């Protein structure tokens, strides 16, 4: 039900066609959508997960990769707690665009945003970007790194769960001295401290 302790906003970015929408659908609806159209503007999904008996609500904003929607998509970066930057491991150009995306994130997102690099479509045979290349890139830009397959449901659950856990830990450590301070959204559930606390790190 409606009780949750934490609300986090997660925004997915990356070139069109890398599988952002599939990742979100896989995670929120447990399916791999057959042939849906390209996202326009921004799509929205919600999922509540539980970590350490705490309910965490994830607001997931799935953005269109095309350049022309850049103005609207960028406006969603700012309030994001986590940004998932996705590329397609079987498509070099989507990897080559990563620096551009980072520049965008640098410009529009909060400096404290949690940044995760995701190489998607690992089920494919025709890999072009070796895992260590992606990992290197992530390390150089101090991002978390994970490889996924929306199609085969590989690492998708883990991706979001670890983000949730990390954000929860951050929230706890930061919010500790303050009780119920400014409520960020209408739902009024602030990220109040919980008792019990363990933090799972991103791998």
């Amino acid at each position, binding site marked *: 039900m409606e009780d949750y302790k934490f609300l986090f906003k997660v925004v997915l970015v990356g070139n069109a066609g890398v599988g952002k929408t599939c990742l979100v659908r896989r995670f929120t609806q447990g399916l791999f959508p057959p042939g849906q159209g390209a996202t326009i*503007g*921004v799509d929205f999904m919600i999922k509540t997960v539980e970590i350490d008996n705490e309910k965490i609500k994830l607001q997931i904003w799935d953005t269109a990769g095309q350049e022309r929607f850049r103005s609207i998509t960028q406006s969603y970066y700012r309030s994001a707690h986590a940004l998932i930057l996705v590329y397609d491991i079987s498509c070099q150009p989507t990897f080559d665009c990563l620096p551009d995306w980072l520049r965008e994130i640098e410009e529009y997102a909060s400096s404290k945003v949690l940044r995760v690099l995701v190489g998607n479509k690992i089920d494919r045979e025709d890999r072009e970007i070796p895992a260590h290349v992606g990992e290197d890139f992530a390390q150089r830009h101090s991002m978390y790194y994970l490889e996924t397959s929306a199609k085969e449901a590989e690492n998708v659950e883990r991706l979001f769960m670890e983000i949730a856990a990390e954000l929860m830990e951050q929230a706890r450590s930061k919010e500790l001295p303050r009780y119920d301070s400014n409520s960020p959204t209408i739902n009024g559930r602030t990220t109040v401290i919980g008792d019990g606390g363990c933090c799972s790190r991103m791998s």
Partner: protein
Amino acid sequence: MCTSCCGCCSALRPRYKRLVDNIFPVNPQDGLVKNNMEKLTFYSLSSPEKLDRIGEYLFQRASRDIYRRRNGFVVIAMEAMDQLLVACHAQTLNLFVESFLKMVQKLLESTDPQLQILATQSFVRFANIEEDTPSYHRRYDFFVSKFSSMCHSNHNEPELRDKIRVAGIKGLQGVVRKTVCDDLVENIWEAVHMDKIVPSLLYNMQNSRYHVKEADTPEPPQEEHADPPTLAETCMRELVGRASFGHIRCVLRPVLRHLDLHELWVPNQFALHTFRIIMFSIQAQYSYTVIETLMSHLDDNSKSNPKIRTSIADVLSKIISIAAGESVGPSVLEIINSLLSHLRLSVTREDPSDEPQAQRAEKLYQEALINALGEFANHLPDYQKIEIMMFIMSKVPYPALDHLRGFNGPGDVLLQNILLKSLLKVGTKYQTIHFNTTFPMSFLEPLLRMSLAADPDMRLLVQKILHTLIDRHHNLEKLLKPTVNIGDLELVLEKSSRPDIIFIRKHGPEIYRSLYESLEQANNTVENIEAVYTTLALLCVELSSEETVMEMLRLVVSIQDTALTNGSLSAAQKYNLHAVVVSLLVLIPNVVPITPLMEYAEKVIEARRNAGANHLLPELLVHYDPDVCLSPSQLGPDVLVDQVAVTESLKGAGFDVSRLQQVTPYGAGGPPGVNVGHRHSWVETGMRTSVADLNSFQVEVDSVSSSPGVQKKHPEEELTFESMKKLLSEPPESAKEAEEERRLQLSETFRTADFHDLVDRTHANNDILQNKLNEIFSKLSTGLSDGIRPPATPTPGTKQDNDPLHSNNPPTYEVLFPELFVY
């Protein structure tokens, strides 16, 4: 399940919970249980302190139902909340609203489009309620984000997709309404919101039928079911209409960004449509800001493809008139100046080594800017048009006289050309009433100077400017080409007014001299010669009076003289001049009826025809067959206009020809061509005439006009002529009167014009603006290639000494437009 366990346990539940439970039917398709709902409403009204708990409980039930996918019950819960919201008193709503909005959000978070649409409807209902004490901590981030996302719905069923989009748009409209009035509530104008709202609306407007080029799209049957584009447009209008001064840019910035990113400038129908909407919905006093923003967007695009710049400038030209009515004082000049700066920039960017296609594109851009200038001027009051013309004139780098040609870089010529085109554009929008208003000295003088530019295209432009400013009776088309068949033209004639006569008496000699010299240019094309003819013919028609006849005839004879003696003109050019001479000779007595002169003119034409001298008659050709065309000296004296014969004709008509005889440098009756020395002396006298010499001219003209020799031949004109004569004998007073009249007119305009409210603002900005303009101007004059400026040490005998615009005097605009800085 609560609905089924209303037996024993329900008695233990709090009353409000029982009341809430009872509104739900057993089967959701039965809908809200009406009478139970009434009970709940009544209870809420009588126990308002319970309202927030009722709200919370309803929300919890709905959350559970959503979770269990029992959407029917969710719908009922929402409906109940809607009803309570409307029924309850404003002061008790506050806490209930929190639950209400949580409920709306919950529904919006669902993946079911129907629930999302339902939630939006509830939200809109809420948005229309005025709360006594809005909750200042309430945030609308989520709603803006979600509604914007819905505006971009990509649902695979088109019908449902449109419904979701409509809901998104309505939701945004609701948020705007809810937040816009109260500064303490969420600031909707912040970039984080506007960057979502504006592109969402534009994205939907883009699909409007106005822009898709489907020729035969039938009109939609009715407007009730507004489609996303229509609705988005409505919302856009509302948003822009509510924007106060500080907020305009918050809206415009994402608009421009969207147009850029979606590449909607070329073609620009949608951009234009959008800006029209903005201009028509914006609070009128801010419309200037839109122009300003669009101009600065042009700045930002200075390196973009010229097609994009052209499109932006085109949009500017098409909306600028809407702002013109609201622009006053310095803002007018700022707009003009900005447009001129863009023109200048474009000119300096032109590179002869560019692809022809790129050059053409740049030219189109310049044309679009000039159109914008013209459109803007078109909607300004006439007195401001003159000021603008003077302003543009002051920006024209001076062409030096012929012997200074070397100092004119190609960039200057381009800039001159472009500025004169702009001037022409503004000129065509201006309607002359009195010549002295149209041609103040500070405008006329540089214009005449430009009429002697080394470049023939430039001279042509100046003549065209003169045409449009002189032609008050729409005779221009008829007088474009020299002709001897004046009767066919059906010219519109009107007796000259008092101020006109004063004007031509004062400035006629100088104008005629420039036109005369203009005809002497060796690089004249047929078009150039025709254009000078047109100017002369228009002057003749517009300022027809016995007084002007003399001066005009003097000029006609002088032109013939040039045609006969000038060594630098080609044979074709000389034939052209002869044709001009005879065309004017026949035009003059047609305008000011002088029968003997008319007869004489016919005789000359006849003689030319008989002598087979068609090359001395219109129309003007570029090439003449040298074997057929004999020179006038070979043809005999009859084909030429004879000074003595002209004088005699005038005498016969009762004119006092002493002036013609006295002043004319051509020895009476002497064969043409003999008096070369005289001719030169006449020209030189003219050359020296400048501002300083005007007084002496005045005296000369006065003395002639007041000589009592002129007799009346046509009694029907007596009254007019008498009064005219009287006027002519009192020139200084009348000149003063005319001046006074102009001043009164101007101050009257300022008094009556409805911008008192703006006076304060203008006043405050005045100094800043002046400084800014100063800065821009100094950039204008120094930034351009150094060649633009006349040499530091003027060559003796050039006009530069008299040039008021290049001296160290106060900035030009202060001199030219003291009217603009009155407050």
